[in-house]
């Protein structure tokens, strides 16, 4: 049977996210409890989490989380890291072995900074340097897979039910201002750890429920801009699209959402002129990055979360609010279990982005 990445595997899923706008610390246990409620939406073939603000002591360093098939891959990868990065700290990621989580790879964590000389020689900006290095490791070092590489954030994922994955990675030992979680229901895979979600690139992470029908159009478009879709998953391609639109094209979150889940032309026609012109521009400029077919995603980024549905809203997604907390999930139950008394609960419309940022967040523009 072909491994993930050699074949495209569609999945159904559960997603959940939580953020404190004031930046209060949320314990990892909370998000595990939320996603566990939607147990039946996954089938034990993948679960994962992304935590933001979890590495305050290393907040200016890139935190690389890496799966290795064996020590040979690790040594090769570490040689690469040594050549290109200043490694401030490295260690195994602490886990709690369990009968429910099997076929474990070696899981390592590195806090790194690009070597200034290498960075200068590359003529790239720092983030581009890091992202290219990660793509290089993942595509060229057999048996090594960097699955998280942002600052002050980290992804934890494995093959298993999400609650077991949370327990395995001892998430109760982490506190962050925002979390996302994913339970996976692939239709056809023996499961590979790298294929679990969230999928991350730099500080962007995506949890996704859906099966996009535009996949190959999107993949072939984004691969023109230096990305390589090695996993053949929706999540991977969506992450790259977001990275491209936000980081390389410098679009705002809502404009990026208008590219990915563009309004229908008939809707655009009836908009006020300025808005109509902008949306016509965005749709015409990036036709290959429109995503169609069902999806609900939660994008995590440094300073916030964004929830987005496909424009027909073919996947469920609800948003809950309580004081400074905002909750996003496939099902209401996943919110109620961690916050029974909500101030507000609603379903965003298809294509309507829900953007929540820290009060201290300043957009790069």
């Amino acid at each position, binding site marked *: 049977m072909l491994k993930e990445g050699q074949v495209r595997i569609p999945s159904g899923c559960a997603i959940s996210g939580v953020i404190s706008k004031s930046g209060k610390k949320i314990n990892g246990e909370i998000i595990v409890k939320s996603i566990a409620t939607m147990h039946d939406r996954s089938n034990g073939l993948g679960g994962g989490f992304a935590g933001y603000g979890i590495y305050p002591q290393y907040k200016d360093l890139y935190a690389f989380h890496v799966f290795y098939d064996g020590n040979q891959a690790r040594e090769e990868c570490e040689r690469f890291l040594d050549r290109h990065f200043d490694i401030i700290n490295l260690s195994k990621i602490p886990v709690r072995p369990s009968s429910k989580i099997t076929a474990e790879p070696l899981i390592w964590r590195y806090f790194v900074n690009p070597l200034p000389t290498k960075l200068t020689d590359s003529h790239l900006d720092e983030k581009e340097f890091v992202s290219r290095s990660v793509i290089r490791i993942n595509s060229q070092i057999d048996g090594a897979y960097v699955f998280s590489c942002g600052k002050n954030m980290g992804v934890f994922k494995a093959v298993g039910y999400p609650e077991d994955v949370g327990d395995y990675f001892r998430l109760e030992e982490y506190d962050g201002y925002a979390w996302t979680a994913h339970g996976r229901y692939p239709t056809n895979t023996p499961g590979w750890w790298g294929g679990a979600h969230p999928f991350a690139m730099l500080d962007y992470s995506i949890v996704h429920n859906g099966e996009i029908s535009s996949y190959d159009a999107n993949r072939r478009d984004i691969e023109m801009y230096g990305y390589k879709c090695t996993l053949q998953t929706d999540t991977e391609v969506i992450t790259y699209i977001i990275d491209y639109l936000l980081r390389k094209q410098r679009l705002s979150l809502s404009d990026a959402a208008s590219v990915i889940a563009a309004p229908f032309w*008939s809707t655009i026609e009836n908009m006020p002129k300025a808005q109509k012109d902008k949306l016509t521009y965005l749709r015409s400029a990036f036709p290959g990055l429109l995503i169609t077919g069902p999806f609900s995603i939660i994008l995590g980024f440094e300073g916030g979360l964004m929830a987005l549905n496909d424009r027909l809203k073919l996947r469920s997604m609800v948003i809950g609010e309580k004081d400074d907390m905002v909750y996003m999930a496939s099902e209401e139950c996943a919110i109620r279990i961690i916050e029974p008394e909500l101030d507000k609960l609603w379903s965003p419309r298809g294509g309507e982005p829900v953007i929540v940022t820290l009060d201290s967040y300043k957009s790069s523009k």
Partner: protein
Amino acid sequence: MAIDFLYPEYEIKRDRDKCICCRVCERQCANEAHWYDAELEMMMCDSAKCVNCHRCVSLCPTRALKIVKTDHTFKENANWTGEHIAEIYRQAGTGGVLLSSMGNPKKYPIYWDKMLINASQVTNPPIDPLREPMETKVFLGAKPGKVEFNSKGEIKNNLPPQLKLEVPIMFSAMSYGSISYNAHESLARAAKELGTFYNTGEGGLHEDFYKYGANTIVQVASGRFGVHKDYLNAGAAIEIKMGQGAKPGIGGHLPGIKVREDISRTRMIPEGSDAISPAPHHDIYSIEDLRQLVYSLKEASDYKKPVIVKIAAVHNVAAIASGIARGGADIIAIDGYRGGTGAAPTRIRDNVGIPIELALAAVDQRLREEGIRNNVSIVVGGSIRSSADVVKAIALGADAVYIATSALMALGCHLCRSCQKGNCNWGIATQRPELVRRLNPDIGYKRLVNLVTAWNHEIKEIMGGMGINSIESLRGNRLMLRGIGLTEKELSILGIKHAGE
């Protein structure tokens, strides 16, 4: 009288029990294949004059006529087929180059028919186009590589000129001269009603049709017939014709007999003179020369109109397209070897060029590998026969398609492939006023609108089945295609998997 070596390929069959001698067949046959014999009180016919255009068959009120392939035969020979033998007799008789019309009819593989389309089941819902919006609008033109912002941080509109198509189908180039005034009027009016474009071809733009400029693509070909500043600015886009699928590497020749008053004025050449388009543009002997013409035309049109470069699908098409994409073109049109023509040397038409499916796949992939696919749009033509072909073309990577043969069929063409004779009984490929009159544009344009509307409905149905609700999500979405009965090599060129994979 010299010996006639040839027995007619087709025979006119008349059911005498049904024939009421109304003589409509006689009156409608410009080839004079039918006549009434007053002595015998019977309709008579000469199959040797018949081109098998079905005009008489279609108009016969009692269905008394049909055309059948003759069962007269040469002694069977798998090598020396009847066709080869007949052509040798014809050339031995005339000493001339064989001429043919319309597209390559030979039994080469048709890759459209070896690709199957996907549909959603369970994991992803199909979308019902009758209930949900389904978008087939396309913008053709170069896309900006980089979003730019003004000092207020607002997005600047740096989008190069675009063509907006309500349907991903345009009418490809057919000159006024090769087809009739009424055929042109039908195409222009249909393009306007459909929100798409028709193409003047290389014969200039008749003054009556300037009013359809917003839906017109004006062509500049090697003969430069009818090209002047107002012409270049009359249309919505300018197309440089480098080649044509039916006759790559060959120019064109409109016989003087067809250059009547109107055509002479439109083409800006003397009445009765032959209009000869050279094989190359004599100012384009290389890619850098093409770039100059692209920019000359952009200068002449104030950079307000996209420039299309049309090429025939030949062996090295991917590299050529890459050069064109870097040469400033906004749109590349590729014409496959099954593309039609008003006249071409038979040997060229039947043996030169490559299938559009393979050319398209190679070009799209090559431009993506070079990261320049979004610098240009790709339009393909050369035998798009149905909405399924359109869907497959777009899934392979086209932005839109050009149709011409299908469009002519909507106007009545029966593919008799005798355009070069100028006696088109359907009023399409002729300049004889009494024949041109047979194509009433009120009927013709409506049939074109019907055809494209029907195709667009079908495209929406197929897209909905795949769970796609916008055409841009179909473009280049090769996972939606599977090959059937193709070799590894063919699959790899098409960039698709085999059915079952």
